[in-house]
């Protein structure tokens, strides 16, 4: 699972986070370090599609929140991924 968009959505599913917090969280739960360019490329696309939205903040760090549509999309992706994982695990099991 290395799609930066899925990783960002998965990180925000836990709660609002700014860029650096997302970067840290993703590295922790997925073992993938997203570079600044990759992370903000994903944030830009997700915001354009309405799957995340900025949360009001006085700080330079801008937190983001996953939207309902974003949760729905993430749910579909996780379900689909789950089916793939289940099938692959079953097939890998010795007969």
């Amino acid at each position: 699972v290395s799609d930066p968009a899925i990783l960002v959505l998965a990180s925000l599913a836990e709660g609002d986070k700014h860029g650096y917090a997302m970067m840290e969280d993703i590295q922790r739960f997925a073992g993938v370090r997203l570079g600044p360019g990759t992370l903000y490329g994903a944030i830009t696309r997700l915001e354009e599609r309405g799957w995340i939205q900025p949360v009001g903040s006085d700080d330079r760090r801008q937190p983001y929140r996953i939207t309902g549509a974003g949760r729905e999309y993430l749910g579909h992706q996780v379900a689909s991924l789950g089916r793939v994982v289940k099938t692959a695990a079953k097939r890998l099991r010795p007969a």
Partner: protein
Amino acid sequence: VRRWIGWASRLYPAAWRRRYRTEFDALLDDSPLRWRDLADVLRGALIMRMTSWRTYGRAAAVAGVAGAIMAAAVSFALPNRYESQAVLRYVAPQDANVSQFQERLERAELRTLSRSALAEMIQEPSLDLYPKERQRAPVDDIAERMRTADIHVDVYSRPGEAVSATAFVIRFRYPDRYKAQAAVRQLVDRFQRALTTGQPGSVPEGTRLDLLESATMPNHPYSPNRVSIAVLGLLAGLPLGLLAALVWSRPKWSPWMAGLGAAGFVTAAAMALLIPNVWISRAVLRLDADTLIRLEKAEPEVLGRDNLVRLIQSPPLDLYRQQRYRVSIAVLGPLAGLSLGLLAALVWSRPKWSLWMAGFGVAGFVTAAAVALLIPNVWISRAVLRLDADTLSRLEKAEPEVLGRDNIVRLIQSPSLDLYRQRRSRMPIEDVAEQMRTRNISLRLYPAMGHGTRVLMISCSYPDPYKAQAVVRQLVGEFADRSAGVPAGGDSGFELLESATLPQTPTSPNRLVIATLGAVLGLILCLVLLRWRRMPAPSAVEPVPAA
């Protein structure tokens, strides 16, 4: 690394940076950055750019298509021109003495395409060519334009072992396809008649002139080429679309682009004004073998240094007087450079003034250009005569009469000229004549080679090129009648070196210079207002909060 990545982040599109720059910088400040993050940011900027380039591409495509449609629409407003052609072939045995016949061919071509022959053809009732143009210009001038612009004679020679063949393709372009064909038919007929009648010499044995293709009926217009015009419109629209997208996406760049574009335009225009025009004149001679040998012997003398020095220094020519250009370049060059430097420094130090300056400059340019369009064009026609000493003394005696008030009044009121109609309604005709004599008619006398010989240049300036030419023609005729008493061009002391010219471009006003001066005045006015009235820069105007 942080600094490098900071630089790289500037490569993101402006719109993206406006939205994300602060938080992106915060992320860069928080993260422990590595060199590979630089590549990551560069890649991200490239991807964003490519997304942004789609906008540029769309703008260019839309503007290109719009340009193509507009150009195509304009092309449909242009009248069609049709080209008819006929092909003649002259075939001669290789051993025949063909030089005599070739000379006849050339003479026939010259007679067929002479100004008088074409003028006669234009006025022939069955053809009745150029009816609208004939209302505005003498038929001789129309014949000249017809010969140089609309009739094309191409000669193709094919030397062979047994025979040699020369093909003549006669083409004529005209807005009416039927008249184009009829005119080519006439030209071929006249050419064949000129070849077979009225000239000494005989047709060498074995030679013949065949009409390979009689005058064609053009089915499709020769011009305008609407596809080419539409493609030009497309090519013009593409960069304009890109420019519009650039201005749209980078509004802060606009004053800079406008300022630098205007500065480049002014610099180039100033430089172009300093470069003198160069004109090419040529003469074509036909020589037989003996004359050619004599000419080759004479060449070192004619083109020798002494002769060229004499030519350069002869007063009527007075060639290469470049000093004044050097002075102009020496003075105006640094001045232009200094002004541009000051302008650049000003824009650099007061960036907020740029918008005002660009606005005033453009407004000044447009206003001055609009005013310049209201100023009528002035055209100068001239004729050049060569006079010997006796003729000159007769001419000097005739001058008060030719340029006398009564004669000028007659000239102004002659129905064919009808000069200064508006001015005549405002002031007495005698004053109009006096103004014309002192301001618009010029006689200049230059020494020339030969004892007592002089060159006289008669010129007239007027808002109508055809009337300017007609006045000069009239004055030349009157001087010829009164001073020489023999026809101009005859074997007398009065020779017409250059008949009254039809000016091709107006001598004034120079609208580019006026518009450029307008831009400069606009800039100066802007600076004065900004300095003394302390005008706020447009970007500094804060919106008034709602109550």
